[in-house]
């Protein structure tokens, strides 16, 4: 299982040249395994009534796939101050870093203020402070978690060099009830899907689908039905306005914002069969991009805004194609597997996530955009609707859970998966990860 390769280099020469011994040794260490960083999040000093901040930080880091955390019951000590940390006690447990912290009441009722210290226990005998933070506010009782996510983001970025996504939001659709009293909701929540952080922005007896965040995170486009007719709606947070953006006869679906936020690519079928259209958000000006007699849908923009990738069954089975954003020659992108559909680009442009069917089921695949090579990162057999985290390190998608559809995340190496449990909810589907908040 563990394939290690070791090499010793450049020894003999210097040894023979010098009488006695060489003054320095050169060696090579090769190991193709990956390993998450071991870290211990010591319970913070806090009031028992307050949300367990340390546990949220622990979960966030663990779910990122970049860290392994030490269970509290295994800790040999629970220091509350850097001076109390005995590096040896953590080292013997294989820990590299330890986090300690403190939660005090914030300025407003129900708010909290968090301080923390990230300590290195590897270097030398004593603990070394790597970074610390204080005055991190959880604004109210329902958003105390925000402070914890912020702490997790700071630790994550300090140790990986990558911006964390714990303090971002996701949108998704839930459905509850039986056939007779089915209820659909468009939900916004913290990126961990915590129930307490959820709040619905739309509720309907008819299906709600395809949430799409505008690049500035200020608006959300999604598909709803009004008395049996579909329409694309745009919700603007600041004004609370919910506007019917386009409601043509037939299908109005799969909205996708252009990277500059000025246009929406949508699927419309009022001209007989579903095709991709680009609509100017400000003017409503409309451009038909595809005219193929097959179904063209699920548009997504390349991060440079130059092209649109979409799903089309023009070849018999759904496959991915690419077309210039202004219309033009269309080229097929996927050839492996029986079906490839529902594409989404990583914000850094390195990956194109998609749903691929190789005959063994529906999986989330990542296509290396440069080499066009594909790998599967999900572990289910009915996985669909992949969308990237804003730091391009994780993908969130819909999977078939034990009691219905659920949301699940996968690291881009496909090593760590995390299901976002939704107790009491029948189905959770079609997630969309919000961009980074502009102030962070």
């Amino acid at each position, binding site marked *: 299982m563990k394939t*290690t*390769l*070791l*090499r*010793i*280099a450049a*020894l*003999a020469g210097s*040894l*023979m040249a010098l*009488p*006695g*011994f*060489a*003054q*320095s*040794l*050169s*060696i*090579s*260490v*090769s*190991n*193709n*395994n*990956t*390993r*998450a*960083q071991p870290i211990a999040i010591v319970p913070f000093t806090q009031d028992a009534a307050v949300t367990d901040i340390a546990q949220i930080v622990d979960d966030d880091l663990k779910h990122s*796939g*970049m860290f392994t955390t030490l269970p509290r019951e295994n800790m040999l000590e629970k220091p509350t101050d850097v001076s109390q940390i005995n590096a040896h006690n953590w*080292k013997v447990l*294989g820990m*590299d870093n330890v986090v300690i912290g403190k939660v005090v009441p914030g300025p407003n009722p129900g708010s909290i203020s968090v301080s923390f210290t990230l300590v290195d226990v*590897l*270097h*030398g005998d004593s603990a070394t402070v790597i970074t610390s933070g204080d005055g991190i506010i959880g604004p109210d009782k329902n958003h105390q978690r925000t402070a914890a996510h912020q702490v997790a983001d700071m630790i994550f970025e300090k*140790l*990986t*060099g*990558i911006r964390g996504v714990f303090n971002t939001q996701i949108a998704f659709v839930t459905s509850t009830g039986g056939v007779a009293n089915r209820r659909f909701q468009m939900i916004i929540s913290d990126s961990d899907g915590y129930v307490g952080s959820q709040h619905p922005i739309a509720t309907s007896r008819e299906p709600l689908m395809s949430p799409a965040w505008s690049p500035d995170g200020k608006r959300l486009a999604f598909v709803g039905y009004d008395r049996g007719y579909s329409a694309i709606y745009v919700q603007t947070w600041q004004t609370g306005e919910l506007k019917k953006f386009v409601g043509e006869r037939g299908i109005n679906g799969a909205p996708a914002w252009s990277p500059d936020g000025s246009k929406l690519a949508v699927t419309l079928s009022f001209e007989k069969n579903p095709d991709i259209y680009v609509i100017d958000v400000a003017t409503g000006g409309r451009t038909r991009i595809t005219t193929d007699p097959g179904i063209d849908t699920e548009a997504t923009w390349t991060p440079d805004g130059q092209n649109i990738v979409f799903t089309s069954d023009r070849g018999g089975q759904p496959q991915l194609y690419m077309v210039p954003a202004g219309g033009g020659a269309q080229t097929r992108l996927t050839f492996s597997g029986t079906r490839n559909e529902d594409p989404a680009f990583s914000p850094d442009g390195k990956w194109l996530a998609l749903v691929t069917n190789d005959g063994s089921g529906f999986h989330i695949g990542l296509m290396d955009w440069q080499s066009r090579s594909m790998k599967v990162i999900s572990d289910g057999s009915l996985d669909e609707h992949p969308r990237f985290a804003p730091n391009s*390190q994780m993908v969130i998608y819909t999977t078939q859970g034990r009691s219905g559809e659920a949301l699940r995340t996968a*690291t*881009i*190496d496909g*090593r*760590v998966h995390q299901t976002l449990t939704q107790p009491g909810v029948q189905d959770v589907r079609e997630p969309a990860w919000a961009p980074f908040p502009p102030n962070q």
Partner: protein
Amino acid sequence: MIAQPRHLVQAAILHAILFFFLFVGVQCHQDVEPVPVVQGVLIDPNELKNLKPPTPPTPDKKPDDANEGPQQIVKDTDVVADEAKQKQEKAAAEQKKLDDQKAEEQKQAEARAAEEQKQKEEAAKAEELKQQQEAQKQAAEQAAALKKKQQEEEAKQKAEAAAAAAADEQRKKEEQLRKEAQEEQQAQAAAEAKRKQAEQAQREAERRKRAEELQKQLGAESAELTAQMQNEWAAQLTAALQQAWARPPGTDQTLKAQLQMVLAQNGTVQSAKVVGTSGNVAFDDSVVRAAYRASPMPLPRDPSAFVPNINICFSPNPRNCQ
């Protein structure tokens, strides 16, 4: 063709005989019986020619002598002439007639002679021309021969010059070779000296080395043993770091980082810093942490093999570190 002197002599003799018979005839016919004389004189030269063998001229007698003879005879005849003047005149007339005839003959003879002479001259001329041509030819031949000779001479000179040059060259070459040989000899001598010196030095070094080895054997370890132990130790260090390190999830397989680690005598990592970055924060951090995680490092079997400075290349792919 060529007028032989013999013919001239014969002609002169013939003339002499004819002249002689002019007077002898008179002497013989003193009794006045002139007629038979005339008959005897009219001799065809051709017949005369035929007569020649019975009266061959004295081989040693010169033409001058032949002329002398008749003069003597004339002198003698003068005495006799007085006595028979009439006869003589008659005879003279006869003689004149004869003489005329003779003159005519002589004229003819002379003409013939002239003709002959002319022929002779022409022949001579031709001969001369021939000789001239011959001479010219000879001269041309001579000139050609001379030229040839000159050319040969020149060629010879050239060849000689070339030979001289070659000889000079050869001499120079030989000189050079001699010089080189000399130099080589000197160099060999120098090399020999050097070699001897080196041998001496080597012997000295070997002696010293033996002494050192002896000392080492007496003391602790040989350098070889130290090297061997250092090799073993390097393998242990590599294994320890191998155990301690794995790249962070999501980092690329092509990355590599160069770490500089300083060890204390007890194997504790005193410092570890990235001296060649991978460009990835998490990756660089992972190799530093691996060093500290593996601390304290294993130690070599003997302290003499210990070195504090360890340079480590970390990479998922061993080829990246080559």
